[in-house]
């Protein structure tokens, strides 16, 4: 069964085709990689999938639901959550509150309940605190729960972004360069975490990454993007040995 089907997706900025006739099919539960040289349009694809940009043409179908006309918020509710290449945390909030913001739409009480501290408020707050702590444990952040997010080291900030995205209970998780800035040990640990998330949360994951060790280590399939168009796609090991791909990375 397919979790995501993207067909003929295109967008241009001022005459430049940033993404051109892009197609992508991801099966449920798959770990999928989107790779390509800098400026190939990978993050633009993420922005199109999450509604930050509106596509000029093409369709995006998530688990049978058409997403093209939906806003960023509606797309999140439909089941896509993401992390950002340039980390975007709620810096002044605590680590656990960052996750609780992710749980926002799963927190069942109204503004009125909140202001007047009705029983619903206490019950729901207790529940989401537990949920948030669980997610932090998965990411190995439980010890830092009450730190201010801005004070976390870089690698942990990236993990907190994943925890926050998971908190929205998505069907599809988009990770934009999750290993950027990590050392080899941290990357190895992150690979385990990503696998754990996929297996234990029933997650489908699409990730952008430059670290080929990570891509070949955990992605089952990859698509290579170059100059906004697909160069090739298929089983990771085959694609990474494709001459065209090597050429695209190294140049002529």
């Amino acid at each position, binding site marked *: 069964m397919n979790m995501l089907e993207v067909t003929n997706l295109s967008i241009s900025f001022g005459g430049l085709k940033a993404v051109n006739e892009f197609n992508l099919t991801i099966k449920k539960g798959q770990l999928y990689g989107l790779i390509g040289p800098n400026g190939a349009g990978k*993050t633009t694809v993420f922005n199109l999938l999450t509604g*930050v940009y509106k596509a000029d043409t093409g369709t995006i179908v998530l688990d049978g639901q058409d997403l093209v006309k939906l806003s960023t918020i509606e797309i999140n509710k439909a089941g896509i959550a993401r992390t*950002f290449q340039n980390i975007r945390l709620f810096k002044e909030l605590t680590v656990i509150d960052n996750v609780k913001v992710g749980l926002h739409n799963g927190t069942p009480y109204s503004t009125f309940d909140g202001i007047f501290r009705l029983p619903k408020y206490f019950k729901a707050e207790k529940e989401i605190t537990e949920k948030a702590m669980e997610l932090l444990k998965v990411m190995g952040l439980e010890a830092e729960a009450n730190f201010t997010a801005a004070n976390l080291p870089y690698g942990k900030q990236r993990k907190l972004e994943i925890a926050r995205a998971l908190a929205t209970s998505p069907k599809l998780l988009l990770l934009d360069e999750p290993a950027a800035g990590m050392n080899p040990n941290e990357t190895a640990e992150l690979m385990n975490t990503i696998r754990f998330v996929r297996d234990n949360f029933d997650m489908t994951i699409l990730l952008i990454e430059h670290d080929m060790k990570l891509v070949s280590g955990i992605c089952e399939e990859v698509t290579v993007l170059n100059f906004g168009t697909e160069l090739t796609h298929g089983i990771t090991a085959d694609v990474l040995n494709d001459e065209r791909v090597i050429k695209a990375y190294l140049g002529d």
Partner: protein
Amino acid sequence: MSFLNHLINGFSLGSVYAIIALGYTMVYGIAKMLNFAHGDVIMVGAFAVFISMTSMGASALLSLIIAMAVCTALGVLIEKVAYRPLRNASSSLAVLITAIGVSYLLQNLALLIFGADSKSFTSIVNLKAVKLFDGQVSISGTAIVTITACIVIMVGLTLFVNKTKAGQAMKAVSEDKGAAQLMGINVNATISLTFAIGSALAAVAGALMCSAYPNLTPYSGTMPGIKAFVAAVFGGIGSIPGAMIGGLLIGIIENIGKAYISSQMADAIVFAILVVVLLIKPTGILGKNIQEKV
């Protein structure tokens, strides 16, 4: 015929707004900040002309030059001391609140030095009014000079930005500070230059404004400053011709509104225009659309 008179006065007032708006628009375009104190620099400029002319007996032209020098120095100083340290602050509120602080500082310093009572300003223009249609329509000498000055400044500034190296540097900094720096442009110097030009223009605007409306107080700059910002937004912030168009339109609307709707409501009308413009076309008449990078 009285309509024509109001229109001409509107043009004249609008020219003053346009000159002030140029200062806002250039600073906004390059430093990406609303320089709240710009209106008070106008006031300082007007006081500098006033003191030079009445206490020191300088000629009108010399007084204007002195005022421009004073304001230029002031503008550069403000930028260096109060705004530059906050250029990379995490919150854009920080520099805005600081600018409000600077505005208050200038106002209250002027209040301590010159007192709250209004000074009667001697016009820097010594030109006879032109009378048309058997004297039914009259264009004051100040209006003629103001409108001319506005056109000259507009053309001069456009040429400066497009034809000189410093002007090109300004354009580059306003597009992308980091990239400009990598290209070897001195970003700090460019921003200082922008403040210098904007503040010198504020001195001109202050002198012309007080020549037309000769009551000068420490608060004289506040409202014209805010209205000129409205004009800059109206025309499209960052655009030099936009500031000119916006300024003229605001001046005309204010004068016509004063004459035909209600003199007390003129300010409210100007502000209502701002709200409507931002609702319909937030980028203004000639503004560009900027999208935040994700």
